[in-house]
């Protein structure tokens, strides 16, 4: 742009080179993550005596290694979707509260309080989950099983605290702040003129929000939810402490079933042999690809709308 307006200084070249180089290093790291995961996953996949994508069991450390991503991928997707279903409505409510309901002076302080949820390290949620939430959830889980057991999700004969539901609840708490923060930014950018026009025509506050804020914010909320989904799928330590670490596909979210790719990596790494490590890296590659797709889709939705530029950061 301004480049030709003045004579280039001698120092400019190296500095420009260094800053461009730093940007390229970032791209190289992203590429290297993919490449090196593939490099270390391939030997293990070749030693596998079963089909990686469909096999349910995970015994890569045996002399005849048998392992597959099936049950783990299922658990990852189910727990993250459940977390999303629980967290999104609450997060939208929180975002509306801060953008349109809370008193102006309090709004930024209350927003900071919600952001604090994100500042709590994941291992602390894990500790909290396993010592407090797991025993606490036993009662409500039994209640759901007794009265709503006819719904397949809540069915089953055994009800435990260390269940898919408890893990999803912890995930929901952890992704709530990111969904709420982005939705809040988007809601704050809804056109003020439209809001005031709606109010001037006699709309109540809710009607104004339904007519002007929500339609404007919908794509933003969708991509926020997708970013939350990506985060839930990659979350490791908190769920590693809670999941009962079984390798079974079951929709009974109150039963003693459940595991995820990330939790399995954390739990299985300690005793993994060479093939075992390769197998864990292969599962990590699958996780990397899934989260990459989800994140790119989410970013694409945000990037398409210029008005959201500020919220994307």
């Amino acid at each position: 742009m301004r480049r030709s307006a003045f004579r280039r200084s001698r120092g400019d070249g190296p500095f420009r080179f260094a800053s461009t180089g730093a940007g390229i290093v970032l791209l190289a790291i992203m590429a290297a993550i993919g490449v090196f995961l593939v490099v270390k996953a391939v030997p293990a996949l070749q030693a596998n005596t079963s089909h990686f994508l469909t096999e349910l069991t995970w015994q890569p450390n045996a002399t005849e290694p048998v392992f597959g991503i099936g049950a783990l991928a299922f658990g990852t997707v189910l727990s993250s979707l459940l977390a999303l279903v629980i967290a999104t409505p609450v997060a939208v409510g929180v975002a509306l509260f801060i953008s349109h309901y809370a008193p102006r002076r309090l709004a930024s302080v209350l927003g900071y309080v919600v952001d604090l949820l994100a500042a709590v390290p994941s291992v602390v949620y894990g500790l909290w989950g396993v010592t407090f939430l797991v025993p606490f959830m036993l009662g409500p889980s039994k209640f759901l099983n007794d009265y709503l057991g006819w719904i397949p999700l809540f069915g089953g004969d055994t009800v435990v605290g260390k269940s898919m539901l408890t893990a999803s609840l912890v995930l929901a708490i952890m992704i709530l702040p990111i969904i709420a923060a982005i939705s809040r930014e988007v809601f704050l950018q809804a056109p003020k003129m439209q809001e005031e026009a709606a109010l001037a025509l006699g709309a109540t506050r809710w009607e104004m929000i339904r007519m002007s804020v929500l339609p404007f914010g919908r794509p933003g909320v969708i991509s926020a939810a997708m970013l939350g989904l990506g985060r839930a799928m990659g979350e490791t330590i908190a769920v590693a402490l809670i999941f009962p670490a079984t390798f079974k596909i079951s929709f009974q979210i109150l039963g003693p079933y459940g595991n995820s790719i990330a939790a399995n990596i954390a739990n299985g790494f300690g005793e993994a042999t060479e093939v075992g490590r390769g197998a864990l890296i292969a599962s990590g590659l699958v996780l990397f690809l899934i989260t990459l797709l989800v994140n790119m889709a989410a970013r694409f939705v945000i990037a398409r709308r210029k008005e959201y530029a500020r919220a994307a950061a």
Partner: protein
Amino acid sequence: MTVQTGIQPISAARRAKDRLVQVLVYLAFALAVIPLLSVLWLVVKNGIGRLDMEFLTHSMRNIGARDAGGGAYHAIIGTLEQVLLASLIAVPIGLLTAVYLVEYGEGGRLSRIISFFVDVMTGVPSVVSGLFVLAFWILVLGMPFSGFAGALALSILMMPVVVRSAEEMLRLVPRELREASYALGVPKWRTIVKVVLPTAFTGIVTGVMLAVARVAGETAPLLLTVFITDSINNDPFNGPQMGLPLYVFDQAGRPTDTAINRAWTGALTLILIVMLLNLVARLITWWRSPARRR
């Protein structure tokens, strides 16, 4: 269709719906705050008991799960070293990338690609960055498990956060400042180093501290790269180390009350460190620009 004249009162049904939504919105906020209060309360209640000098100055060497006593000194040292090393790697790269995006890239194709992948990189699961360092640094290059390997994994998680916050701060620097400098014949790179970066300095520091706070609590990447030890290891380049998050994970996995209590105290120490960093970052922002706050 009837034509209404004058201002009609809002019907009871519409008013009730408005009230209902208001209650739901307030409820949502309460629902979000309850887990936060519960976590903080339990961490303080269960952790304060063991937060003594022994905890802060001793390691876990020769202390079994059942034994009382023991501490997290080795873990605190490890966390400080790992986070410092990670910052030393991530901050220069992140800052230079932000400078490229704001000052040199201006809308070009490469800058759009980098900007997109910085966003995507924010979403890389922490366990994947740990696996990457495990595959690349430890398995392919044959390096030992060490604090430095953990720092590499943490730096990957830090970079996109540093880039985004620094970029935002650099964009806030008024164009007139740059133009005044160019008008005096100062070359572009000296303008960036002497005018743009100093102007944005406090904002950049805030962003870096938030990034540090984010990675200080990461456990999964450390588990795969630093490993676990009960002894003090001051050398981050050689041999397994400990980290405070790892310490909490390790102690939480042992089925005795004394171990669980140590885990709570470790969690309290970790939260205090992270909250302190967050608070300092917010204070710097607040102190710098009281007028810009809404």
